[in-house]
């Protein structure tokens, strides 16, 4: 099998572009055989850490992984994530405290981030309708956030920025203010909460795949900085087309186009 592939590979390479130095490194890449079991465990780790219980369960069946962690814990984290994503911060905080009250007690910055998100949601509700009642938002800010703000300069700045949302009309918010209303803030906070829960359970905070991708970025950068020889100008992942690396190799020039085309393909989903 290996021989066949190498022949194919060399065949393509000689037809295609490229200098011979390119192939030295590519061949070294080809010779490394990561174990499928390892990769599967990285996938499983992500599904569990980031909370995709159904996919995790299915994957366990399809790949014959028998023990894949505590299902209850996944479900709890998913429920909390869902609540935060949906803007239901109150219930998220309750759920976190049900799980382990120490998480928020010990991480005042995370607790503040959640409360501020809750304030933002209240402001969102009252500013989304003309003449909406801002009393709930104000009450919440004075009772929940104001007492905490003086303990930390960042808290104070964050609170002030958030309160500005009440003053300016929603249509012409400056980018930093508009960012507060963006769903990515919910996502950020949800990620922080997820990591805090994992940490409190003595697990790895981050899914392994994240470190792996960082390693890939870092090692390429470092190799280029160090002037490692025989490094092709680009190291495609083969993510864009089904045919994978062979295609990307033959059509290197076209690949940039490919990517833009792909970006275009995404567009219908981004009206």
């Amino acid at each position: 099998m290996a021989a066949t592939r190498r022949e194919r590979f060399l065949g393509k390479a000689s037809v295609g572009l490229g200098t011979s130095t390119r192939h030295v490194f590519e061949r070294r890449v080809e010779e490394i055989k990561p174990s499928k079991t390892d990769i599967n465990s990285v996938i499983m780790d992500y599904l569990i850490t980031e909370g995709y219980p159904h996919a995790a369960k299915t994957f366990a069946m399809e790949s014959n992984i028998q023990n894949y962690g505590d299902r209850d814990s996944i479900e709890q984290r998913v429920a909390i994530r869902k609540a935060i994503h949906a803007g239901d911060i109150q219930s998220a905080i309750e759920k976190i405290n049900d799980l382990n009250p120490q998480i928020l007690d010990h991480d005042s910055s995370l607790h503040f981030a959640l409360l501020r998100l809750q304030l933002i949601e209240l402001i969102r509700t009252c500013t989304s309708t003309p003449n909406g009642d801002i009393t709930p938002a104000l009450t919440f800010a004075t009772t929940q956030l104001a007492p905490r703000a003086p303990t930390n300069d960042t808290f104070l700045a964050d609170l002030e920025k958030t309160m500005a949302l009440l003053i300016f009309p929603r249509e012409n918010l400056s980018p930093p203010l508009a960012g507060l209303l963006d769903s990515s803030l919910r996502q950020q906070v949800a990620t922080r909460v997820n990591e805090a829960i994992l940490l409190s359970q003595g697990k790895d905070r981050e899914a392994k795949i994240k470190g792996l991708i960082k390693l890939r970025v870092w090692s390429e950068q470092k190799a280029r900085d160090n002037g490692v020889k025989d490094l092709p100008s680009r190291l495609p992942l083969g993510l864009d087309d089904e045919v994978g690396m062979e295609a990307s190799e033959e059509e290197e020039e076209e690949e940039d186009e490919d990517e833009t085309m792909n970006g275009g393909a995404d567009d219908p989903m981004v009206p």
Partner: protein
Amino acid sequence: MFRRSSYASVAAGTAASTSPQPFQSRPNTLSPMMNPTYSGANSLPYSTHHSRHPSRGMDVEGHHNAGSWGRGGQLPSYSSQYGYSSNGSGGGAYDGLHETFFIPSYLRGSRHMERLEEAYKARVAAQREMKSSHSNPGSLSASSSSVNLHKMVPSHRGMTHDIIERAPAHNEPKYAPLPMRWSESDMVGLELQADGLEVRFGGSSKTHDDAASIRADHCMPRQCGIYYYEVTVVSKGKEGLIGVGFSAKGVPLNRLPGWEPRSWAYHGDDGYSFCQTAQGKAYGPKFSTTDVIGCGINFRTNSAFFTKNGIYLGTAFKDILKEEDLYPSVGMKKPGEHLRVNFGQSPFIFDIDGMMRQEKKMIQDEINKADVASLHPPLDETALIHELIAQYLAHDGYVETARAFAHEVRAESQALANGNTNATIKELDPADDIDGVNRQRIRMAILDGDVDKALKYTKSFYPRVLRENENIYFKLKCCKFVEMARRFVEQQSANAPSSNRATSNGNATSNGHRNQNGKAPVINDYDDDVFDHQMELDDQLIHNGGSGDWERMDMEDSQPHESRATGEKEQQGDLMVELFKYGAELKTEFKDDPRRETKQTLDSIFAIIAYPDVRESPVNQLLDVSGRVAVAEELNGAILVSLGKSSSAALERLCQQSEALVNELAGDGGPGAFINVRKDFLL
């Protein structure tokens, strides 16, 4: 933090092979019967004892034991001083192999050490193989070709281990070994003792200028990142004119290290450091009898340091020559001077492990700062991960998972978007990927231990694949034999009065997923026409986008002739007969295969029959279900190649590239030397 799960397993030796680890994926490359051998050499004090106890008493008392390290068979008595007890299996472990292997504590988990260890185990296995197959002492032919012997190793584990991940041993480049002892030839005017770990000034000094120096047997491998060794001054003689350091090959040995170009050292009589010149610089304290002097090079920063009795003395040299292979070297000048070296066989006095940890952490911190958004614009981290996972699942034929994942990601982003317009998940609908479905069927068949079904599917869907990949075909056939043997063994224990079947290697657990459908398997005796017809029907269902319909086929298409349901009713004798019959067929089919691997593999699987209870036998790992995974993935890869697709998904490619890049960064002792991709990032 670095995950260094291997510590325990390396140190614990035999225990590692039996400890249940959920994601333990790469089986110990060492076959179980080799383990005791190994642990004998390795379960020595440094398994847990740390260098943080500067026990000088140990050195004085312990030195008379040092000699036994070289032989490897006996445990030095001071190991019991620390509460380590010999497990008894180490004795005589090195019969016929005049080589020891050890991992210095600070290099545990290092990629370079893993490679050295693999190579070492391969050599041991080859030695054993040679011994057992050529017990006739008169036969000289066996020892002639070590190349062949190397080839035997991967084939030997062919059936049982994760073959995909590693190139055969004979392809492996030579990896630079660690210094093990002082060289017998690369020295002047010294007496070597204790298997090359002690040196003593020999005879009288002829002239006042002549010194006596020695170099180690191997150079310090840059791939270690940091290399460190320690020397105990057993006796300083009269003046303590002793130099500890390193030099390149060819540097005159009648001079103390440090005095000559291409040599560097720290001297005991004045505490000076000497950098390629006889003109020293004030560096540290003097040293004399019972002092332990450490010498280390950090190849990443290209600098060297020394320690005295566990205390770091600071950087001594910078800009050490990069082009040279550097050897540990000591020298002395007066009668009575006597040194003992520790190349990592025993614990170090200085906390070199801590320095290694810091170095690794620094690099890890740097990696953590990498900007992932630059890898595949315009995707951000989350989007990129989702794409990588989705593509992997589709590529490798995890159809249902791909579907479930796409669904959950979509649901998540919809919840998040909440009318917002940020959702950018690529639609990934694997439903119309018939190949994916087919490949998953084949995979499941193998994972279920139903090799016949896998063969049938493969022949029908991808007729070329087995013809063009004879070795995979052979592995599948062998797999079938192993599965039959497994059934036999299970039945045996089921019939036994105290049965704990299905707990060890059983089918019962591995087939769990099927029962979750709540349908009992239907057994159909059909001929190939029916099968083909069924298959067409099935394909149609898939064309119509029916999700999950493919499982139906599995339901109806249970094994034609060895179904589990009937199998349990069968007499054991029948299974035995079948097993032998099939074994004979197998032997006939491949008897003309000239490759040595083929014969080796056949011999090893036939050995299963020889044991009354295979699970207690040396070949028990053959029955481990993880063997199925390897075969299944190899076949899947071959099918992908036959379909003109890359055999590896983007995520695999990413792993491959990362490791290749790290290797590039490790070769000259750069930051890559401190990274073990698999240990630090995959496990």
